[in-house]
């Protein structure tokens, strides 16, 4: 197990993770980051907007960034041109 920290950077600024989570490896950390990004996007959708400008930065126990997940990589966008087509 290794410790990973998940910072969120988006429209409202930086939310630093000073607690972290113990996970089996980078692949599990990627899953946690994607799930976290999606959960934030989900809450935004309920309020009536989608802001994909944010990102989750994953840091290791030495606080080095080992992975960045932009919000727009956490979801697949479909039907964006539906409005134009009609």
């Amino acid at each position, binding site marked *: 197990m290794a410790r990973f920290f*998940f910072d*969120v950077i988006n429209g*409202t600024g930086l*939310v630093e*993770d000073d*607690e972290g*989570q113990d996970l089996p490896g980078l692949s599990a950390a990627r899953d*946690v*980051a994607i*799930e*976290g*990004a*999606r*959960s*934030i996007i989900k*809450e935004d959708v*309920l309020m009536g907007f989608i802001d994909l400008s944010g990102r*989750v930065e994953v840091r290791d126990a030495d606080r080095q960034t080992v992975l960045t997940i932009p919000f727009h990589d956490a979801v697949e966008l479909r039907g964006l041109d539906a409005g134009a087509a009609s």
Partner: protein
Amino acid sequence: MIDKLLLKMRRRDDVSAEEETILRAAVSDVREVAADVTVVRADVDLHVSTVLIDGLMCRYKDLGNGERQITELHVPGDFVDLHSFPLKRLDHNVMSLVPSRIALVPHDRILAITETQPHLTRLLWFMTTLDAAIHREWQLSLGRRTSLARVAHVLCELQMRLDIVGLADGMTYRLPLTQVDLAECLGLTPIHVNRTLRELRSQGLVTFRSKLVSIDNYGGLKRIAEFNPDYLYLDKRPR
């Protein structure tokens, strides 16, 4: 040993000296459990119920994909699986979230109480119905409250429940929960919990840092949570 259980009961009704003696004598054993130990497992025949003396525990259920829902947090003084006396087995697990101390009460001693002590029996019944009320409030949170209100609500609830058993210092209390634990209580992700805590802090409502909760603006926090402590049945009256 079960002083906090008595504090919890006496907040809602009188407990006579005789009833207190009987309740204390019902404890057969006291055990220390490490953190993250499933103390009561679902679908196992049970012959004892557990009172939490020190620490923090929870009821939880898991899905096949590993997703976990904590359905209630237990603070010292809670009779965490009193309902296993009539149910005989549970449909959920009970685990320690931090190193904890528990008192075991054999079901045959609870049976004796129900046959000889009608008022004490009603108080024990009250305890399980109170758990049901807490479950209903959590259902409202999980189904309908925003993430901000969910976090605010559980922090208001724990302040009240810990204060009853003497474990809150006014609007400050120790809460040895991780973001992952909170996420499993609130149906959120740990990343979302962290962001929500930061939002509550930046609004000057509450700070949760180094396992310490400090409510800076109780009125504001209650408003956001729509926290109404009536579901904790805090009035003292004959039950």
